């Protein structure tokens, strides 16, 4: 190989070889070595079988080839199309995110009892939550605990600001700098941005096609983390795509809350609306709804948030100390 051979006579090849050297030097491979190690470790039980002799391997190999040949022949004779790879299907799904429509998913959260989190309105058990999504926009319609008479919704914008609405006239904004980590984690866990989800699944997960129920017009794809890969909150997923449109019809995410509590969240497509039929809650609301912030009517904001976050809110939203005025 080049690194041990004599210098390349061609200047283009020499520049290219040096370029590859620099790229190699800038490439961190520890995690990849670990991934290879884990894959081989997973193979370990199969290793003794390999040592039984070449004949066994040969026989198994010939058998496998024969089976594949027969299966392929049967497939061809029946005139059935070959199954598309899960990657190809999800790439088709990605194209659906460009459509100018809002999709609504029913959100169901399953987790072991954890009374401490009952006060997280995003996770209020037994309450119906509905996720609306379009591109990188999303929001969730729900009913916050202790305020059943109000229509509530919350979401997070492109800048990371969490917003919540309380009825038609009031709302609060939490800037990223004042959002506590636990709240940020919970909003991550409960929301779903399909475009980001699919990109991450394609990148970091092993994908397998699963058999759909008989007569069901869906493709089912199971995603498990690749060995050696790590994801902050997603451990696995089952994605059901409409066989014809490739739209995500149902998404089941295996997540892990900050305390490693396993969590299963299911999103089921229930409705699709055009942009004319539904409006992003923050669009066209100027003058109709007041949004309280840390600077604008902070006491009103606290009044709305305390019932939702309870003790956590008191720890987090301490009143700002008043600094003495300079003379």
């Amino acid at each position, binding site marked *: *190989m080049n690194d041990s051979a004599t210098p390349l006579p061609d200047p*283009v090849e020499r*520049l290219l070889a040096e370029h*590859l050297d620099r790229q190699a030097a*800038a*490439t961190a491979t520890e995690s*990849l070595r670990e991934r290879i190690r884990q*894959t*081989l470790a997973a193979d370990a039980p199969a290793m003794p079988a390999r040592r039984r002799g070449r004949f066994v391997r040969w026989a198994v190999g010939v058998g496998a080839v024969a089976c594949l040949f027969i299966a392929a022949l049967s497939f061809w004779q029946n005139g059935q199309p070959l199954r598309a790879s899960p990657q190809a299907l999800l*790439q088709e799904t990605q194209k659906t995110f460009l459509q100018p429509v809002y999709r609504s998913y029913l959100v169901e959260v399953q987790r072991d009892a954890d009374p401490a989190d009952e006060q997280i309105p995003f996770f209020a058990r037994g309450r119906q939550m509905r996720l609306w999504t379009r591109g990188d926009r999303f929001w969730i319609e729900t009913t916050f605990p202790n305020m059943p008479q109000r229509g509530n919704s919350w979401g997070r914008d492109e800048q990371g600001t969490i917003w919540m609405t309380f009825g038609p006239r009031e709302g609060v904004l939490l800037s990223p700098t004042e959002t506590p980590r636990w709240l940020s984690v919970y909003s991550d866990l409960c929301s779903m941005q399909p475009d980001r989800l699919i990109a991450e699944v394609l990148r970091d997960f092993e994908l397998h096609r699963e058999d759909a129920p008989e007569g069901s017009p869906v493709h089912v794809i199971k995603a498990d983390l690749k060995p050696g890969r790590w994801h902050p909150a997603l451990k696995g997923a089952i994605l059901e795509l409409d066989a014809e449109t490739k739209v995500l019809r149902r998404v089941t995410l295996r997540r892990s809350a900050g305390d490693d509590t396993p969590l299963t969240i299911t999103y089921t497509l229930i409705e699709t609306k055009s942009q004319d039929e539904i409006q992003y809650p923050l669009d066209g609301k100027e003058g109709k709804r007041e949004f309280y912030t840390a600077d604008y009517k902070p006491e009103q904001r606290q009044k709305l948030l305390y019932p939702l976050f309870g003790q956590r809110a008191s720890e987090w939203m301490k009143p700002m100390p008043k600094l003495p005025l300079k003379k």
Partner: protein
Amino acid sequence: MAELSVQLGSAAVDAWVRETLPRAVAFAHSLVRDHATAEDIAHDCYCRLLRRADVYDLPTDGTRLLYRSITNASINRFQRERSVLSLDATDRDGNSPAGSVAGRISEPDEPLRLRELERAIERGMESLSVMQRAALQLKTLGHSVQEIADTLGLTTTNAGVLVHRARQALAVELAPYLGERAG
């Protein structure tokens, strides 16, 4: 990582993996232009070879087999995903391929000239087909034209033409830098 050698029963093989892995990933990246895909390909190719470590003498023959395997896997992957693996696509870090290396070499004391050269090489490689990239990279790595032909499933003549055209195309992009090297 002592575990890897324990699993494979050979410290020499572990050392071989440690030594060859960065260059193998860089090689795969130069073909598929996407870091995550390059890692996946390298992972699969190493696993395939390491599972047969009892058959191959990896420290001696492994590197050649590895590059052949990576080349084939990259071409397969590229052809299968041609419709989505755009050269303009961003990689996992959100960088465009052309900016990936230039982005990494961004230390203030790094010579500007080197950064420009890296960009020129990236641009030149992007302008090549995946077969041309593979042929030229293999040549750069010391493979003979016959070996390149075997790897790419071509005749020796076609492999030679592929290398020649790739080199010519890259030479156009690198023209400003070739003069100083020739001198």
